[in-house]
Structure formats: structure tokens, C-alpha cells
């Protein structure tokens, strides 16, 4: 109940964040502008609309998660609203998880709004919405859950600017982890190779969550892949929230 009280309050607070509306506006504009890019690619217009629409949901959802998330705990400390909360018989992890749940619910709302808008646009343009579209959106949401958890972790230990830089860097690196293990053969056995492999395993492989290109190209993705990726996302998210709770446990506020 304590966690839910914090979650619902966080949702009410985050939904007032102006940056979210700015990003939602740009997401909508990008989805609508995908038609223009479709004109450039002769005969590929529907594919481009589907591809860009889902990419916009993923990108702007991530930006909302990062910019709202990295402020989440920090703002409570900075505005001192945290004093009257943590001075009650509440576990600090309940506070962190409550904040996270509130934002996760906000991200769900935002993702649903963008997905419905995008689906409506695709159908208006003559495209079809299959079950794979839903799967692609669900995987995007699971990726956003992971990004949100990392943002909340950074928010509990660092300032919003530093937190946003770290999360954005990790987000970009997480989409390009393949490069890390794709070194030329003459690096075999070197420290650099070992360091790169370690980083590869440490970073979340965010490109796993992106199946929108397959959807746009009509390539089937097994349901088991979707389930495994969701599980991977949940495990990673749980670990990040665990670290956030530990980091916040003895922090002076």
C-alpha cells in the first residue's frame, strides 16, 4: 500500500511534467512526417511509415523515461519533499520501487497513446495492424522499463544532468553492442578484446527489443523470441532496481 501510494503520487506528478508533452508532440509529428519519407522511397512507403512510427515510439518513449526518470528521486531530495516521507516507517526500497512503478505506469500510458496513434495512422494510410505490431510495441515497452530502471538508479545517486548523460550513452551503446565483439582477428587474446567482451556482457543488449524492422518487412519473429526477450528485460530491470535500492539504502538525504 505504501509503495502504491508513492507510485500513484509519482504518476500524478510526472504526468504534469511539461517535457513529456513536448516529446509526445515530437513523437506525433515524427509519425505523421513518416509519410513524407515514404514518398522518397518508391514503392516502400508503407514499410517506411511502419518502421518510422515504431522507431518514434521507441525513441521518444526512451527520452521521456530518461528525462523524467533521471529527475525522479533527485527532485524529491532537492525539493525536500522526501523528508516527510522517509521519516516515516517506510523501507527505502519501497520508496524507490514506488517511484519506479509510478513512472513505469506513466510510460505505459505514453506508449499506449503513441501506439494507438501510430496504428490509427498506419491503418489510415492503408496498412494493416497484425499481432506482430502488438508484440513489437510490447517489446518496446519492456525496453523502456529497463531504461526507466536505469534512469531511476542514476537519479538516486547522481544529478539529473550526469544521470541523463550516463543513461543516454548506455542507451546508444546498448543498441550497438555487436560492435564490441566484432573486432578484427589481430585483437584476439589482447586486453582490449577481453575488456570489450566484458562490456558486451555488462551492457544491456537493447537491439534485442527492436523487432519493428521485421514487422515492417513482413518477416515473422517466433513468439518464443518475444517471450525470452521480455524475460531478459525483466531480469535486467530487476537487477537495476536492486542496485538502486542498495545505493539509496544508506544515502544521506
Amino acid at each position, binding site marked *: *500500500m*505504501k509503495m*502504491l*501510494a*508513492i507510485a500513484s*503520487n509519482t504518476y*500524478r*506528478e510526472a504526468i*504534469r511534467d511539461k517535457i513529456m508533452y513536448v516529446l509526445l508532440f515530437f513523437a506525433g509529428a515524427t509519425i505523421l512526417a513518416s509519410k513524407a519519407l515514404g514518398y522518397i522511397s518508391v514503392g516502400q512507403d508503407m514499410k517506411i511509415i511502419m518502421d518510422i512510427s515504431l522507431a518514434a515510439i521507441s525513441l521518444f518513449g526512451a527520452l521521456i523515461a530518461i528525462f523524467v526518470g533521471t529527475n525522479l528521486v533527485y527532485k524529491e531530495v532537492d*525539493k*525536500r*519533499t*522526501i*523528508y*516527510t*516521507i*522517509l*521519516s*516515516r*516507517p*517506510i*523501507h527505502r526500497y519501497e520508496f524507490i520501487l514506488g517511484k519506479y512503478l509510478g513512472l513505469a505506469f506513466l510510460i505505459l500510458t505514453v506508449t499506449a497513446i503513441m501506439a494507438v496513434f501510430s496504428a490509427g495512422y498506419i491503418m489510415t494510410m492503408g496498412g494493416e495492424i497484425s499481432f506482430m505490431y502488438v508484440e513489437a510495441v510490447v517489446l518496446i515497452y519492456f525496453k523502456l522499463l529497463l531504461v526507466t530502471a536505469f534512469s531511476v538508479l542514476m537519479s538516486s545517486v547522481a544529478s539529473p544532468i550526469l544521470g541523463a548523460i550516463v543513461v543516454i550513452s548506455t542507451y546508444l551503446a546498448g543498441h550497438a553492442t555487436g560492435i564490441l565483439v566484432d573486432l578484427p582477428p589481430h585483437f584476439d587474446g589482447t586486453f582490449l578484446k577481453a575488456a570489450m567482451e566484458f562490456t558486451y556482457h555488462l551492457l544491456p543488449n537493447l537491439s534485442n527489443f527492436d523487432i519493428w524492422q521485421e514487422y515492417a518487412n513482413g518477416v515473422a519473429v517466433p513468439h518464443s523470441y518475444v517471450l525470452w526477450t521480455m524475460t531478459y528485460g525483466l531480469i535486467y530491470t530487476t537487477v537495476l532496481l536492486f542496485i538502486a535500492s542498495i545505493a539509496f539504502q*544508506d544515502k*544521506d*538525504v
Partner: protein
Amino acid sequence: MSAIEIKQLTKVYRTHFGLKAKPTLDSLDLTIEDNEVFGFLGKNGAGKTTTIKILCGLIKQTRGSATIHGQSVRDRESRSQIGYLPENPYFYEYLTPKETIQFYGKLEEQSPKERARQWGYLSELLDLRSIADQRVRGFSKGMRQRLGFAVALVSNPSVLILDEPMSGLDPMGRHRIRDIILRMRSEKKTVFFSSHILGDVEQICDRVGMLVDGKLRTQGSLSELLSRKVDKVELIARSLSESTHKEIENLAIQIRTSGEGVHFYLENMDTANEAARKVYEGSGELLEMTPIKETLEDFFVREQNPQEVEA
């Protein structure tokens, strides 16, 4: 069992490079008994807020221990016994007082019925009814302080910890907070509060403690701490002849004139009586003769800077 027991409490904040700085709080020993109103005094930066934050579980002490009714402040359950009012309390700006009280009630796992009952009691006690549905954004300092007090009382705690509850309030606001603190004492609660408004502290505290540079300089009841001897005597007179005025002036250690008359400050009661006799003999009008004893403010200044005062 004491309401609050602090033993050798020390807090050292680390600098950015991990180096230890000077202790903000240094080996503090303090005991607050049940149903006591305790005033915690000290200049800015003396360590009052640090002590309060440790008691409320917001920061961790470097050394020493503190307990609330025998339970360590590191134990989450100890916080079910306290109500905390931070200095300049901040709340979620988009909530109304009623929603704020509901929110904190939920954090205390109160049932909807309990929350409604608490709102009824607190809105009455702190006069929140008229602003029940206004957003906290735009509230005056006094309104925020009343709401802060209500939030501190949501769980009906046995120990109230108040950080500068009267700071920034107008006389009416301070009067209201004083009344509430006294009412809490009559309800058998313990009140531990820091304040700069020494006149208020003097009126409502059973005991006070004073921190100087993170160390407890002194503690005790006001009668124990304040020098009860007459510091000087103030005599106010008017319609004095020039010669009488001159004679009394020779006896006085200090003199000033106001619209009321001439204020003579005399060293002791004997000199004051002699001066009064001169007023009568010179057919002057004696308006007032008041022995002046040491106030908490005098004591505060004396304890903060003993050498300066002596000089």
C-alpha cells in the same frame, strides 16, 4: 524509559574527495524524558538540523547511538513513534491539504475510515477546513507550516520532532504554533524542537539544551540555567525637577528617555529604592520599578560567546 536518548552521537560529513571534514556533531549526549517540551538551541550550523535528521532516519550517524523509546533510530519501526516537521516544509504543490493528509495516511497504512477521522481532527486543530481544497502551490508560509504540523501529526505520534517550527511566522502564526505545542504536552506527547525564537522557547519549554559548534554546551531547566539574581532594576519616572534628575542620574548605570518618561537603570534593589525615595522627595511621579533578570536571550549570547560577554 526516556522518549529520546542520544549517546555520543557524532556526524562527520565527507568532502567530495572522501576526506573527513570537521564533525558537524561531536559526541552529543542528551536525554529527553516523556511528556517533556525540550528546546534545542544553537546558532546556524551548530548541528541542530543534523541531530534532528539522524533522529528521523534521514541521515546516518558516523558514531554513537540514538533511540526513540528504546528503539534505535536505525530501526525503521522507531519512526512509527515520531512526527517530524522539517524547517520550511515542502509538499507536493499539486495536492490539496486534504489530499496531502490522505497521502501521508496511506504511507502510515491507515484505513480509509482512519484517514477520514484524522483529516477531521487535524483540519479542525490546525484550521485547514477553509483551505481544504486549494492546491498547496501559492500557500503562504503560515499555511504551509500549519499543513506541516498536520502532516507531522497524521500518525498520532508520541514524540514530535520540530525543526524551527516558528521561523518566518508572523506573531499570530507563532502564537498558534505555541498553543499547539502546549496542547501536545497536555496530550502527554513529547516535543523536541529547535528554534531561534528564544522568547517562545522561554515560554513553552520545560528544558533546553544548547549546541555550540556541534558540541552540547549546556542543558537543563530554565530555572537551573538562567541566573535568577537581579541583573539590574529599571525605574521609570516623570515630572522630575532638574536637581532630582541629576541626583538619580548619579546613581544610575544607564539612562534613556522615552515618551513615557525617563528610564533609569540601577545596579541593585537598594540603589533603586534610594532612587525611588528621591523621586518622591522631589515630587516626581514614579511610574514603574522593575527588577530585570537574565533572559534566555542573554543566556544564549553569554553561552555562545563567553569571552566576548566577559570583555
